[in-house]
């Protein structure tokens, strides 16, 4: 009968699709090795690997306890559930000590563990796949010469269907573009080098590019700015809201020291990134600065000369009188024009990106949590005001700062930003 034949056809079709999917999603385990069988490694190669590990800020995710570097365990909240970074020390049982080079390369380039399991793209192999052969060789040499630290990170169990790892194969089909990026002959060698580092191991887009509903970076909106762990990673392209242009020299100083005297200090997760970059080789950081200065060369700030800092004190005082009092008592000793800190070359609030951005998240969080001293220059740290100001006062002060130090429209979402920051604090 026609119906039976159709049913058989559908069944056969499904079976064929399943077989194809299996063949695509399944990868063999790679035989373990004895950790003692790798190396010895050339010392210069290990040093190159250390430089690259800082550039990629491996420790940012893989170190939870500073006394147990790279032993994993740090939770990363994603919309699909919490991912725990794994142990990447060369411990044979719980780390990557039993991983031969081929397994390491497969993980970095294709997101597959030695066991054959698919790794979640919280591990940014969509960027690491662009690493060069030489970079992977150096990173492997550095990792395998770290002290092995036993310790299994909590198992990652994502919500619902996302806990089924073979689905990651489909994600990769859509979003993983394997291999190093081609050289762009229209650009300088340093730009190409900066792009290879930024798009590869440094994985800048991991925070600064918005993600789609499957958690993949939306390449059409590359560097448009995105939320990450409650902080707003601002745009790094023509949409940069900076009021003063990001030149190569300013970016270089910022990335290297955590402070651009023409803009502001690095805040939130970027503080840790700049601390790591402060120990990366000068020419690598400079190349990254060249790449991002080019990306931001069409931003509004690039079209005119440096403006004087905006200060609409009278307007802000009238709009937010209570906050003006709070500012005078809590903030002015450092941030009022002429305050001692300003005499030491710290930038005025008007030049920082947080107040210029199109949401209040970073401003609220900086007031609440404060800022550690930048990696480079010595000088004051910003204290935290979470226990000094209540939610209403925080909101008022944030609105006052936006009014006083920018000419942009008021933020509509300040209350939400405060509530979210408080909720994050309670965890």
């Amino acid at each position, binding site marked *: 009968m026609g119906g039976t034949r159709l049913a058989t056809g559908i069944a056969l079709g499904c079976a064929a699709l399943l077989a194809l999917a299996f063949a695509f999603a399944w990868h063999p385990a790679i035989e373990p090795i004895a950790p003692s069988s790798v190396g010895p490694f050339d010392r210069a190669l290990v040093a190159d690997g250390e430089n690259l590990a800082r550039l990629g800020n491996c420790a940012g995710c893989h170190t939870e306890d500073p006394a147990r570097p790279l032993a994993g365990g740090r939770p990363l909240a994603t919309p699909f559930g919490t991912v725990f970074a794994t142990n990447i020390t060369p411990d044979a049982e719980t780390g990557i000590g039993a991983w031969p080079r081929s397994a390491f390369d497969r993980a970095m380039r294709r997101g597959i563990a030695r066991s054959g399991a698919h790794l979640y793209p919280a591990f940014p192999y969509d960027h690491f796949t662009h690493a060069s052969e030489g970079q992977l060789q150096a990173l492997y040499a550095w990792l395998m010469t770290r002290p092995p630290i036993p310790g299994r990170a909590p198992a990652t169990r994502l919500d619902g269907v996302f806990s089924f790892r073979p689905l990651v194969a489909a994600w990769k089909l859509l979003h993983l573009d394997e291999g190093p990026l081609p050289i762009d002959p229209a650009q300088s060698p340093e730009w190409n080098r900066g792009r290879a580092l930024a798009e590869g191991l440094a994985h800048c887009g991991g925070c600064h590019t918005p993600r789609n509903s499957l958690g993949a970076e939306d390449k059409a909106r590359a560097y448009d700015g995105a939320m990450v762990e409650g902080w707003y990673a601002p745009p790094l392209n023509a949409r940069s809201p900076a009021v003063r242009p990001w030149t190569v020299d300013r970016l270089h100083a910022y990335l290297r020291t955590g402070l651009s005297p023409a803009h502001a200090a690095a805040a939130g997760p970027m503080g840790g990134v700049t601390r790591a970059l402060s120990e990366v080789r000068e020419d690598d950081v400079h190349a990254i600065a060249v790449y991002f200065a080019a990306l931001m060369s069409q931003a509004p700030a690039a079209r005119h000369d440096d403006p004087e800092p905006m200060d609409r004190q009278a307007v802000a005082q009238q709009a937010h009188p209570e906050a003006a009092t709070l500012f*005078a*008592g809590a903030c002015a000793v450092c941030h009022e024009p002429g305050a001692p800190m300003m005499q030491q070359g710290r930038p005025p609030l008007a030049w920082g990106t947080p107040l210029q951005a199109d949401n209040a998240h970073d401003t609220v969080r900086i007031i609440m949590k404060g800022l550690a001293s930048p990696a480079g220059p010595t000088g004051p740290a910003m204290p935290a005001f979470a226990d*000094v100001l209540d939610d209403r006062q925080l909101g008022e002060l944030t609105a006052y700062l936006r009014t006083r130090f920018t000419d942009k429209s008021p933020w509509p979402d300040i209350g939400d930003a405060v509530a979210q920051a408080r909720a994050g604090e309670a965890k």
Partner: protein
Amino acid sequence: MIALFVNGQVHQVDVDPDTPLLYVLRNELALNGAKFGCGLGQCGACTVLLDGKPVFSCLVPVAALGNRKVRTLEGLASPDGSPGVLSVAFEAEQAAQCGYCIAGMIVRAQALLERNNRPTEDEVRAHLAPNLCRCGTHMRILRAVRRAAEMMGGGVRAVAEQKP
């Protein structure tokens, strides 16, 4: 006039609302435990408790206080006026050299031990990190905090207990 709740009492003070709490404590209320160190929230000599949380009183405008409760070093004494547990422990360990930072150290340590009298050594050190001592009596200060934790029925553990 602004009403302040300090050490269990209400005070009416006639000051500008942007005046830092530290100045009001010292100049209006004669509570001189909290010290002026840097005036920039960097050193911790001015630390007081605001609803139980340690804050730099040099950066707290009185306008921010509302009904919240302030406690200073003076407010940590026992009801009969004898020194509080932390003061006794700091004296027993001779933790002060010049003494300028000590009021802030005691007040900040109080906030931790009230919440948790069995902290780890790392927790104690991280908690006290915002307060600076230029004489270098840190080891004695840490000993005093350990002693106080024991006097409060707890103690400072060397390392965190492993989670099961």
